[in-house]
């Protein structure tokens, strides 16, 4: 089986699906000849031509707005937004249009658009190349939100996303775009949306993470092991709809849960997970559910490593929940 990094896995998914389904088109700023700012679409222009790998002017509202029209008409567009931080000019098209088309038309107009965008910090990108805006979209009924943490899932989830009929926001962890490598089948496979993965089984504390934070959670779990603590790490993979069964099963088993995310704490997705878990598993909880998150500041530049959750902080929270 070939080894790929996340960029290669994404590209392989796009290529696989473009070969399988002539309705799939890719569009965005510089996705064509240039191959995309992170090279995720490199090679696609040569293989599929300008008709299916479409450069656009600089306008995210135009990218998503036209993708909606393409989907209504029968294509399967996969727009790229260069950075998650630049998705806001398209916010109205995503939240008021894309997410609501099926519902508002009584099911007449499904709108299968898969928006790909890199998210997360740690690349010295400052405010505008580092944000993790998942919570905004998880709060938007009608969207699905997917956030892989590794190459295998990136390819399998992207293929699954492109084959179902609802709009998806597909967030890619840019800090580990190249650093995360693993075995990825060259051919076709999917990873079902809505299913979490237990990336490390354990018995005493559950740590829930996604995207770039799964790696941090795993490192913390390894630290914990050295300290004799057995930690279960759940990679949520799909954030909306999220895998409530996996969460509840683990919470009931361990009774102690820590959530890790990069986005600011207040009203982040961690809050929803806490709310959902305590509603259903309160009787099993031995301690409050703690969060290790980005702080409630704009994403900083010089102090980004002070800002970002790290294994030490997760370990502190693990201890806190055990000592509570």
């Amino acid at each position, binding site marked *: 089986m070939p080894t790929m990094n996340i960029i290669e896995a994404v590209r392989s998914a796009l290529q696989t699906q473009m070969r399988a389904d002539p309705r799939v*088109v890719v569009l965005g700023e510089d996705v064509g000849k240039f191959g995309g700012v992170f090279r995720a679409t490199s090679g696609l222009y040569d293989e599929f031509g300008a*008709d*299916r790998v*479409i450069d*656009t*002017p600089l*306008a995210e*509202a*135009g990218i*998503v*707005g*036209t*993708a*909606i*029209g*393409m*989907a*209504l*008409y*029968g*294509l399967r*567009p996969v727009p790229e937004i260069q950075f998650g931080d630049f998705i806001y*000019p398209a916010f*109205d*098209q995503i939240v*008021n*249009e894309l997410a*609501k*088309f*099926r*519902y*508002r*038309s*009584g*099911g*007449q*107009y*499904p709108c299968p658009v898969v928006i790909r965008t890199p998210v997360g910090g740690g690349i010295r990108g400052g405010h505008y190349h580092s944000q993790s805006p998942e919570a905004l979209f998880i709060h938007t*009924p*009608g969207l*699905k939100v997917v956030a892989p943490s590794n190459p295998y899932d990136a390819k399998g989830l992207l293929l699954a996303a492109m084959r*179902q*009929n*609802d709009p998806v926001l597909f967030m890619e962890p840019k800090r580990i775009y190249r650093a995360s490598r693993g075995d990825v089948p060259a051919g076709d496979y999917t990873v079902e949306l*809505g299913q979490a993965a237990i990336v490390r089984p354990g018995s005493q504390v559950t740590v829930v993470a996604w995207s770039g934070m799964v790696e941090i959670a795993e490192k913390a779990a390894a630290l914990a092991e050295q300290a004799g603590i057995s930690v279960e790490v759940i990679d949520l993979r799909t954030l909306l*709809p999220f895998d*409530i069964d996996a969460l509840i099963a683990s919470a009931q088993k361990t009774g102690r849960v820590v959530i890790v995310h990069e986005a600011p704490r207040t009203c982040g997705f961690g809050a929803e997970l806490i709310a959902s878990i305590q509603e259903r598993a309160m009787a099993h909880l031995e301690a409050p559910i703690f969060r290790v998150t980005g702080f409630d500041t704009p994403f900083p530049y010089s102090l980004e490593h002070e800002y970002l959750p790290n294994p030490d902080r997760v370990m502190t929270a693990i201890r806190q929940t055990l000592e509570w």
Partner: protein
Amino acid sequence: MVAVPASERDVRRVLDDDGKPLPGARVPSIPDATLARMFEVMLRTRILTRVAHEVRLGAHLAAMGEEATQLAVAPLGAEDWVFPGACDHGAWLWRGYTIQQFVDQTLGNADDPSKGRQAPAHHAARWLNLVSISSPAGTQLPQAVGAAHAARKLARDDVMMTLFGEAATSTGEFHVGMNFAAVWKAPCVFVCRNSGWAGGAQAVQTAARTIAAKAIGYGMPGVRVDGNDALAVWQVASEAIARARAGDGPTLIEALTHVVFRVPDPPEGNSWLEMIPTILEFREDPSPKDPLHRLRGYLRHLGLWSERWETELAERCFDEITRAVAAAERKPAPATATLFDDVYEHMPWHLREQRAYLEAQHAPGSSPLQK
């Protein structure tokens, strides 16, 4: 290659104020039956808009007077798509959306093709290639462009048309839609109804002398047309549609319309059935710009019009509305559980859970007070 009118006064007209062809005007050759149907749809649109206004449902008054402009869709084929604005009722009626469907949507009952999901005037008819309407101004423009580009990518020769008010030209969506269309040479026709009226007020939207001039900045032809002149609208729309279909790219049409009835807002609580008869007298626009007056004149000129024919059309329309409203009011609201349908293709766990919760709340004897 970019044509724009030389001056503000360069406005396409075919008919004079009374519907006679202007000297020297090229008159589009439209079959008699089509002309008659145009008049009928314009009349029905007028009546429907007015009645809906009087019961405060689903139409702003501002749309009255725009009936000829809405028929920019008339020269399209059935395979072509329309992305309408919020009050282009004529476009819907022209394409075959029925008065019953109109009323069912307005009342949001179980027979509404959109299942009661949206406020009045926000129709959707996939079977007619009429795209679901939203309220935010201008959002339909890039969508129409995407569909147009898709048609070309799929080697079909369908054309997309989108309609919008002049205030929508102030939105960012107008800009990105126009720009993508021109860069992609998308087969898309942009129809701006310029009434000088935005919502409840007459805000200044631009310092440009014309809306059509905005086309220049995109490298797209822009044309101005008298939006009260159904033949002129037909003509410029036909030309733009032909250009688009031939692969020559998009066109911006600025249709100059006017706001017909300066009547006050009706009181809340008017009922459909009461209002219908009282509307008859308002049918006529006092201004010489009335698009119905002009087309009537032209039909008369061709010997296609009679008082009796129009009276019959109007009465049939009132009759249809009366029956539609009576029927619609007997129809139930959509079933409560349908609240959760169509958010996704397949209902995820959290919506199933919420549906079960709602059903339990509505179950007899479920009131928490009775426990």
